[in-house]
């Protein structure tokens, strides 16, 4: 066994979303540290994967032992303002269903939170909701 490759975990999570939103109807998706200039009155998704507090799982030294890697993915869903929430929640259901209690390549996703409407969209000019999913992965040293 070896230390976890955080980029592998990140790409596993992001690839699942990119594949889903590349299907019909296509919704542009942008990830951490990527430039994106949204088209006004369009729909798009911003996905941010972050790793948080990790923990010991089992006894042992630097080998034959396990750690728990914990993270969260935050998906901001932007849809045109002033036309109601329907189209936003359609996208919200797509991304929520994608991670709801699934295990993808050893990444365990918890029950999603949201889509939660945000009072102050960022950037402005959109109706924004947020879906948050915590995830866990076991590092086998």
């Amino acid at each position, binding site marked *: 066994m070896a230390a976890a490759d955080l980029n592998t975990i990140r790409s596993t999570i992001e690839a699942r979303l990119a594949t889903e939103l590349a299907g019909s109807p296509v919704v542009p998706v942008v990830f951490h540290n990527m430039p994106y200039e949204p088209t006004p009155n369009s729909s798009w998704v911003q996905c941010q994967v972050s790793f948080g507090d990790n923990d*010991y*799982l*089992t*006894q*042992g030294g630097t080998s*034959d*032992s*396990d750690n728990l890697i914990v993270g969260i993915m935050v998906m901001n869903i932007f849809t045109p303002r002033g036309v109601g929430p329907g189209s936003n929640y359609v996208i919200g259901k797509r991304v929520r269903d994608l991670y709801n209690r699934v295990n993808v390549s050893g990444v365990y996703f*918890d029950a999603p939170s949201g889509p939660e409407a945000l009072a102050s969209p960022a950037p402005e000019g959109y109706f924004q909701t947020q879906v948050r999913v915590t995830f866990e992965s076991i590092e086998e040293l």
Partner: protein
Amino acid sequence: MAFYRGEEGSVKFDDAGSSNSAITSTRSWSLTLDKEVLETTVMGDTYGGNVGGIITGSGSVEVIYTASSSDETAAFIDHINTPTDSGSASFELFLDTSGDKKISFDGVVTSADLSATVGEIEIITVNFVTNGTITTAI
């Protein structure tokens, strides 16, 4: 002065009592050693007297369930289901990763608590008592 942390510990076990192997995925272990006290106070004494008696031990090992079958983990978890237990199962509880500091004894598994809770890793707690000599190499 050396200090040790819990993650340096480990457990080895053999249900046949001959060749111990590691139990994988142990989260923790604990052991309590007790010594009976025999009172030797007699009439006329001003102060009470005591001497040590029988020494026994009991404890537990907490294991993450991994369905492992290639080592002693499965045998350890399943040892509670041994109908005729002679108490010859061998335990070694290690305090450090070098393998030098350990407490070893034969014992009987007295109970196993299995649990599954949503959102949490499945944990099995195995409780035991010692049988016979307890060797402390600490």
